[in-house]
């Protein structure tokens, strides 16, 4: 793999950029791999990457039915934070956040991680208490957060309106090292690094069935033939139920559509991410200048990648009230993604009932921020059968009544 650098860009410019090599190879599938990952989104690619990097397992294929990074990795609002309440969540998301800090250097690919800070607004007394509790928990979890006053909020986000008639801003939970990253670049960076390790990232390869013998997985059938494997990781957000069905088990998951939208680009006016959970609005400004806005999910199962417009309306009106200047911006584009909602709204990183199969799903509306931590932990689980990062996220927790419920801090799992 040729390294990327400013020097390389200058050098290639002299030959009119004719010398750049492919970012990732486009191989034919081999007959057999040590491990197959279904799904070349961020989580799947990160899993493959850490299988190779941390565990030396490099005979790996990542199968993607469409184009890599084309699911929720490329459709989310790119928020990165780890200010979670429950220990298990905080550990996983903080691992991810810390890996984002060095991801560009690790992958030699600029994913533009921008630790510009994330504020979660407290707009009811209940939220104030919830976020104070989170700040307390974070202090013990090694996550740096702080409950800040309305005045601090205003200093950090000058465009905010603190005195909305409905929900005044009473404070906020501030994570200074939270932020955003360029979502596509995360998938591309991992794909390039996997490819450089000799792994096969195979696009337009759809798994049609999962083959098993003697209660153990032996491979998959695809539109490009049968491929054998010892271990199989299912990492297909939005389609998890469908693929789990191929392996013969049901999940505590419902797939719904979640919407996001962006405004036309404007000059920089907001240098952090603001989340207003009470009114269901989330906003940051991309490096291109667009205001990137996320909102609520539909209340019904939906696989269309289109949502109902009234959710966009609810989000926009909340933001117009929280940030009055938004009213005179224009919505440039809206889209939907299919998100998997679990019974406790926390993800599943687990061994599956079928031996040799592992499942990583249920990220709901907040999977992007977890990508490197999820890949790290899931790779460890696949390689060694145990990871402290994923231990609490097993499928059995529902049976036991041992939930990881983040909504208790008034925050929703975005």
């Amino acid at each position, binding site marked *: 793999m040729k390294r*990327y650098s400013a020097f390389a860009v200058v050098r290639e410019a002299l030959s009119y950029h004719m010398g750049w090599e492919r970012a990732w190879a*486009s191989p034919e599938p081999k007959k057999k791999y040590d491990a197959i990952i279904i799904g070349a989104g961020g989580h799947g690619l990160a899993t493959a990457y850490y299988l190779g990097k941390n565990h030396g397992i490099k005979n790996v294929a990542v199968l993607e039915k469409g184009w890599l990074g084309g699911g929720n990795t490329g459709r989310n609002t790119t928020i990165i934070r780890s200010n979670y309440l429950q220990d298990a969540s905080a550990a996983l998301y903080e691992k991810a956040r810390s890996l984002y800090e060095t991801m560009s250097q690790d992958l030699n690919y600029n994913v533009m991680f921008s630790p510009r800070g994330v504020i979660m607004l407290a707009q009811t007394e209940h939220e104030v208490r919830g976020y104070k509790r989170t700040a307390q928990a974070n202090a013990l979890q090694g996550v740096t957060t702080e409950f800040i006053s309305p005045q601090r909020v205003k200093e950090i986000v000058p465009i905010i309106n603190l005195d909305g008639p409905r929900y005044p801003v009473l404070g906020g939970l501030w994570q200074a090292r939270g932020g955003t990253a360029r979502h596509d670049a995360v998938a591309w960076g991992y794909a390039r690094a996997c490819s450089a390790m000799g792994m096969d990232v195979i696009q337009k390869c759809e798994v049609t069935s999962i083959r098993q013998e003697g209660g153990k997985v032996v491979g998959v059938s695809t539109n490009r033939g049968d491929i054998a494997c010892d271990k199989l990781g299912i990492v297909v957000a939005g389609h998890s139920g469908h693929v789990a069905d191929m392996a013969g088990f049901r999940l505590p998951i419902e797939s719904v559509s979640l919407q996001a939208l962006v405004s036309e680009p404007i000059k920089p006016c907001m240098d952090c991410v603001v989340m207003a959970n009470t009114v269901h609005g989330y906003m940051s400004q991309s490096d291109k200048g667009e205001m990137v806005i996320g909102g609520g999910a539909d209340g019904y199962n939906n696989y269309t990648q289109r949502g109902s417009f009234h959710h966009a309306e609810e989000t926009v009106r909340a933001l117009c009230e929280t940030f009055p200047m938004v009213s005179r911006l224009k919505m440039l584009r809206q889209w939907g993604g299919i998100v998997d909602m679990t019974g406790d709204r926390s993800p599943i990183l687990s061994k599956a009932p079928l031996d040799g199969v592992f499942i990583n799903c249920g990220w709901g509306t907040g999977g992007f921020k977890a990508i490197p931590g999820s890949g790290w932990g899931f790779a460890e689980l696949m390689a060694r059968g145990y990871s402290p990062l994923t231990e609490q996220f097993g499928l059995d927790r529902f049976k036991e009544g041992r939930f990881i419920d983040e909504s208790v801090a008034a925050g929703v799992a975005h």
Partner: protein
Amino acid sequence: MSTRLSNSGRLLNKGRAMNFTFNGKRMSGFEGDTLASALLANDQMLVGRSFKYHRPRGIVASGAEEPNALFNMGEGSKFEPNQRATTTELFDGCKLGSQNHWPSLEFDVGAVNNKLGRFLTAGFYYKMFMHPRPLWKHVYEPIIRQSAGLGKAPKDRDADKYEHFYAYTDVAVVGGGVAGLQAALVAAKTGARVLVMEQTAHWGGRAPVDGGTVNGEPVDKFVDQIVSELETMSNVTIRTRMMGSGVYDHGYLLGYERVNDHQPEAKGPRHRLWRIRAGQIITATGAIERPISFAGNDIPGVMLASAVRDYAVNYGVSVGDRTVVVTNNDDAYRTAIALKNLGLDVPAIIDARSGGAGALGDEARALGIRVENGKGIAKVKGYKRVEGVAICSQAGEGAVLEEIACDAVAMSGGWSPVVHLWSHCGGKLYWDEAQAHFRPDVDKAPTGAAGEAFVIVAGSANGYLDLAAGLADADAAGKAAAKAVGKKVAKSDVPAAEATDEAASEAIWLMPQGANIKLRMKSWLDYQNDVKVSDIQLAAREGFESVEHAKRYTTLGMATDQGKLSNINGLAILSDALNQPIPQTGTTTFRPPYTPISMGAIAGEARGEIFQPIRKTPIHSWNEENGADFEPVGAWRRPYTYLRDGEDRHSAVIREIDQTRSSMGLLDASTLGKLIVKGPDAGKFLDMMYTNMMSTLKPGRCRYGLMCNENGFLMDDGVVARIDDDTFLCHTTTGGAENIHGHMEEWLQTEWWDLKVYVANVTEQFAQIAVVGPNGRKAMEKLTEDDISAEGLPFMAFKDITLAGISARAYRISFSGELSYEIAVPASQGRALWDALLEAGAEFNVMPYGTEGLHVMRAEKGFIMIGDETDGTVIPQDLNMQWAISKKKEDYLGKRAQERSYMTDPTRWKLVGLETTDGSVLSEGAYAVAPGENANGQRNVQGRVTSTYYSPTLKRGIAMGLLLNGPDRMGEVVDFPRVDGTSVLAKVVDPIFYDKDGEKQNV
């Protein structure tokens, strides 16, 4: 130079001049002008700077596809960035400023990027700026952000109003060109309800500019006739200045009406968002002309041929004195002919096709225009405006044959149907090789609620580019739509349009065909985002082979025009680079809206006071007038405390509690949920709803109950009163009223529908006032004849009494630990009772208390609070409330769940009281730490604070919390560190801090 012509301008009212400013310079135009036509009339060719290289940019188009002419418009509370000049009507006093440059449009420092263009190729930022790490956030990113972005951010609150409108129609027609009008008329004649919308202020679309005849009359006459006919039909609504913005599932269509953009001082909403539900949607959205990629095709003065024609015919503006036309199809000849007929110079038509044009070619030659077949443009000369073109052979590599001086270039790379609305909801496309564009695959339309196709495309949007074929298609579309909504369609003739004999166009994506890399690096695809032919080719080389990858890698089509001009050209270049046919490369997805719509319109009326409903109790206005410091609780506003002169929240709360405990306080408890549950099976039903046994409650008595969800967790609590054998009144928490009502209905309707039980939510029927404190009874006795003594109305009983002349129900229940009555009266008399109680209690110095006083008093008494002690993960057993769980019942909601292994785990944290050793107040949400760390390096914890307050009664901090083995650790001291890590020690105590034996409440 561009200038106003005296002999044309069909859309102008030259009798009404309008003044405006551009970058502070005074200019004038006419009523009917767009901002774009007015600027061109003032010879303003340079209108902005591109996103990345800050290249000079001029107007390219005349409609929604315009990528360059975007302005900061207006001032203060009416300021708006990124206004598209081609779709904004000029109004008197309009103030415009160009965007994305510093210090000025003419001299932009950012244009240095243009010199660096060779380095700043597609995706360069993914490959650099990585070292040293902190520099990305602190140096590189701020520079990139400052350089990117377009218009300025608005600062003020929007002064305009917006609204929504729900419209229902059988047939909605998007597009008021001849196709839309014809389809609408045909559908309307069947009696169907028809709604027609046109995004501009004018009917007829392109046809009046392009010319031709229908039924032997000029096409604009035809348009006038059809519009007047539609106007007279009662089943038809026609609206201009309204864009079909998006098609959504089940026949949902958004119409974006710009009611007052052209008259910003008028009364009424600025925009109105129509939420339309249509049986059938006809998209007669026309087609958009494509640019051609040649070096320098982005220099101001290079414009779409159709736009040049529009400006000349519609607005009486000549874009240049000498206009070279370059094309791959016949339509552009119309521009040359129109210009020539207006007396302007057309030095040449450069036709890339070796065979040249049909009849229009002859007409052009007859007018004396030079036509060059098989030629292309090697490059355009000039920087801030066109100075000339270098001509080459299209088949070659760009060797210059000749240079022609000119000040405008009219280009046409063919036409693409506007398929956006067709595609929004899943309509499929196919590639038409002959016409070189994607067009709707009419067999794969979006499907609606009944599985039926609900979108029909008509006219040029369907690929029927000439007038006759377009009208015929539209006629069929109108009939099909009417039929689909169940109307009877009578036979009728299609209006006869003159057919034009046109030669076929040829797919020309790059000019010349063999352009070398230097030319390709100057050949623009996406003007706004600065994506060139070479960028797409680089993406392909680097493996970004999916069209979505290539778009995202290069940012092609991601700008505010959403690639209306660039997507197909980019796709073609990508396909060529991958050496595969276009359909195999794919197509792009189209997302709503068609063009950007205002956030204000989306938010609609919901702003300011009517942003969201605020629920108010019958006593709200008194609260407002008497210092209430409100907090939102659900949708309600409840007083947190009542501030008196100079008081802060803390001292007000202390005052209220002291007064209540020592004498008398009042609480506006109207927000408590109140549900009537009635029927022969009501007791049985409530036994399932509550963990307690409710069926044994005696009429006239009250019982505190707990409700769990089926997952075992506590969800609500409250006092249940049995009114009579068949009737219960269940109190819920403030936030719980609607939820618990819904919860009860859900179980009754979907699981136990055989039970004879009716539930009614009477929360708002009653104002409820808690009269609390040792003197409360005395005050009440002044207002009633009824016996409310300890014997006449004992603790946990209720009674119907007359109080202050008002029929009331008094409950002897207490959430404060004091002697307490909760009085329910009809809401319309709530304020009267409140006033009477204040008066009667005056001698006891009565004062109202707020939610914080309520919270502190209940904590002093050790009562749990839903939402504090519970958070959705707590079961009654955690709170040592086994006493409220009936052992006799086989079943209740949550019982089975509470038997799961983690729920019965003896190490679950249990409720205790906590007292700091130094009397201070524990931090909210603080955790009790345990030795060591877990496998993830997090500090071990063994408990947490659930509520913590300063107790004015005990004069110290008190708290409740959940603690590992808590009830067994009374007297033990536990550390609850602050966020800064310093220790706070607290002793484990009984959670009942005040009046442990309940003597005060039961008097």
